[in-house]
């Protein structure tokens, strides 16, 4: 009797087992877990960067120190400052074609990848310009659109699009964030992992508004750090074998003022980060024209308590 129904039972067991695995896997994919408790990211040191400055600069006899100015205060778009007190400038008018930039990332060859930024006045082209990643060619010094994202949709109710990027020396890729489509109720931004060579998206993390991105290698793991555009928080995603653990968002630090947003993250030295903050409300109001509104924090990783502590709160 049992033998007769064995095939039916077996098939039911197989279907239920596969179903259980699939439901589990899908639910972990859907539910992003936020780690709010102390999380040991491990101690870290400042690593030697793999990047270099654009090669055309040496043809122009530009020597170190060189800085890239995206402040938009004196120069629209991009400018290289160099020489004593950075008093010399390279800023061809052609570099203003794509209006204003917010962040840059250099690569191994000296190409500069640039993220756009809407700046105070809106022109008919402004929204379209926010849909691109730009590239300043290391050899020619020409700026062009490197990659266009149709799905990035800035609008009058959120004029921002692509906003930040960072170069990954491990596999020569870019991590890029966009904060378009987000509104007062929901965050709908995306972090993209981009294959530079083939100009294609390798991975994406959705529903995240990252105002800034930085890669951090610790003794144990690699992390993508990001400052939230909506809250005064620094988060991290773990990256293993270049795959991002997108379902595990680790909260690393909360700024003292609820109005601040992290705009820049620098790894200063072993276990030390420098965070630059601004007020940010997804509008074009020039909050940072008031220097009092900009803050800088030094934070140190505490390997005992598994948290960052402020050195200059």
């Amino acid at each position, binding site marked *: 009797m049992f033998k*007769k*129904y064995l*095939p*039916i039972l*077996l*098939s*039911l067991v*197989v*279907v239920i087992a*596969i*179903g259980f695995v*699939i*439901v589990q896997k*899908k639910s972990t994919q*859907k539910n*992003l877990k*936020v780690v709010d408790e102390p999380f040991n990211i491990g101690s870290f040191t400042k690593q030697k960067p793999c990047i270099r400055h654009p090669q055309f600069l040496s043809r122009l006899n530009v020597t170190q120190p060189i800085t890239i100015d995206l402040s*938009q*205060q004196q120069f*629209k778009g991009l400018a290289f400052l160099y020489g004593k007190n950075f008093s010399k400038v390279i800023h061809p*008018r052609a570099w*203003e074609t794509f209006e204003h930039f917010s962040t840059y990332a250099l690569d191994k060859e000296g190409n500069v990848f640039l993220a756009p930024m*809407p*700046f*105070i*006045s*809106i022109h008919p082209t402004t929204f379209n310009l926010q849909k691109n990643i730009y590239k300043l060619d290391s050899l020619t010094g020409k700026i062009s659109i490197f990659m266009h994202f149709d799905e990035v949709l800035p609008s*009058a*109710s*959120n*004029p921002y699009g692509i906003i930040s990027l960072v170069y990954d020396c491990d596999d020569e890729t870019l991590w890029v964030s966009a904060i378009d489509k*987000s*509104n*007062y*109720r*929901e*965050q709908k931004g995306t972090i993209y992992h981009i294959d530079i060579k083939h100009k294609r998206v390798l991975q994406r993390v959705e*529903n*995240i*508004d990252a105002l800034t991105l930085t890669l951090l290698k610790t003794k144990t793991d690699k992390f993508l750090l990001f400052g*939230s555009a*909506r*809250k005064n928080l620094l988060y991290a995603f773990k990256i293993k074998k270049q795959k991002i653990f997108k379902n595990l968002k680790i909260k690393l630090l*909360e*700024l*003292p*003022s*609820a*109005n601040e947003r992290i705009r820049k993250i620098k790894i200063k030295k072993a276990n030390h980060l420098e965070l630059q903050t601004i007020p940010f*409300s*997804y*509008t*074009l*109001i*020039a*909050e940072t*024209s*008031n220097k*009092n*509104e900009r803050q800088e924090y030094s934070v140190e990783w505490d390997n005992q308590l598994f948290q960052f502590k402020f050195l200059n709160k």
Partner: protein
Amino acid sequence: MTKEIKISIGILFFGVLSLVFYWFYDGSIEPIKEDTFIEERIILAQYGSETYRNVPAVQAYLSELRSIIKRGKAVIPLGDNELNSDTRVVQNILLADEKFLKTTKKKSQLIHHDVMNIHAVLVSSLNSGLKEICREKQCYQAEMYNFVDNSTVRAIVNLEDKKVLQVEVFPNMQADISLRLRHIAQEIALNAPEIKKELKRRPRREEMSMANVRGALQGSPCENSEHLCVAPTFSDYEKEQALWAIIDLTELKLSAGKWAGLGKTTTPACISERSLQNRYIMKNFCEKDSYLERNGWKFAYRLTGSDGLEVIDASFKGESVLKSAKIVDWHVAYAGKGSVDSAEDVQLAGRHVEFVKGEKEKFFFGYNDAMGCPMFSTSVVLPFNAPLVKDLYDEKKNRVGFYLTQDYRNPKWPMACNYRYENRFEFFDDGSFRVVGVNKGRGCGEEAIYRPVMRIDMALGEKEEFYKYSGSWNKWLSEQSDFQREAKFYEQDKYLYKILNQSLDRGYYIEPNRGQFYDNSRGDNATLFVSKYKEQEGSKDLLTLGSCCNLEKDGVEQYMNENESIDGENLVIWYVPRIKNDAREGQEYCWADTVIGLDGNIKVQEFPCSVGPKFVPIKF
């Protein structure tokens, strides 16, 4: 194949098929909720400083300040109850020390300061030289707050030798407040009508805590970060929530209130009045329409992303009047002399400046100011406080209607290159209404020309007709514009235009402002445009329209087509006044200034200019 085998194959087939379908079915993935803005309930202040002038603690404080200023001094010292024998001596030493008192006088003007605290010196306040001295001697430190500059003066005093060792000024820093100011803050909170209303009773001092008073030398939680603010709280432990009252000690008033959870996670690290306002405004006026019914008028209103306050679907005594009225832009232009490189890209006070060549070695430069929601918008001038409804009076102080108004400001107004605008809609009891743009300066200079672009879509029916008066009424047949400022004839010496429905039994006269509205206006000097309604022409949020500085064009020209008939069409009126500011003493117009008042505190002087046409119903 047995029946059981067939059934098991069926189970496998359909089971796997369903699982494949389940795997690829996307469903609706919920956006992450934990990062959305926390929704605490926010209470905006409805009353100004005057409300608290009769609170005894405030009265005594202001009276002492006036008396001190009268005596040619500017510092309110700590009272006896905050001093012991040592700190009393320290205070006396400091109040006679020129270096400590240096910031209390600017030219001949006295600047209000309060001594906030005097206590034994903290090692962290000392450099190595002073550490040596203070190891041997008894040292004290004192902090004094400058209410005008928002700075703190800190002094280190060697009590034994009666010597001031060091005086430092910390700009934009605020010290721990004195017990007296703490008491005043509590009194203001206890007497605030908004707090009473929220708690549904008069609050008691014992339920109040001041745990979140200023930390030493930290930033301010005020709307204006240059004001000294503290936040006493009223806790309701049963409901696990607390009412935070943000008190502005610079202006001696309640700035805002907020209900928040008691838990550590919901207690804000720093409450900012501005962020509270932003959230309140977003939730109540940007994300949804509000409705108002009063004196026969009925309409909805909302704050737009870049077109200011918009009134929609207005009716009077049941008859439709307006589909929409709003000020879509303020063009701000300044005249300059000399040549200009039009490709030049310049920012002034953090804003993009446009340059346009003019005639005879002249050029114009300026901005387009979009007014919009405080978050998620293209706005550069932000709404302060929510829209307000107030009674409207005529020149004889008779109530004649009401008005709806929204204040927009750059946060740093009235500093140079910062602006303040008011969008106002006046509704009269006789069915008239007026769209008003108010400019309160201050701008970047004295040669400013302001042009608010008003868009008025009447609702007299799907088919409307437009007329201009030039001795007799002439109907406009196609899209066109007119310079009101050049008009010589007005019907009844008031009306220059009129709009009627096609059956000619309903309509409104348009009465341009020529200074007859008793608001010290110098007139509209406007350009008027009439276009056929097209959805893409401003029915939704318009981004900045046209050039700030090309005075030959107002931006609306792009919607004008002389071949487009407007006879019997749904019409839109665009009205663009032109105002020149004036900074001459006694003649100020569209201007604002800050002065040090007789009490040693900053006073803002406003010289508003108001423009906009009145729409008067035609009696048939």
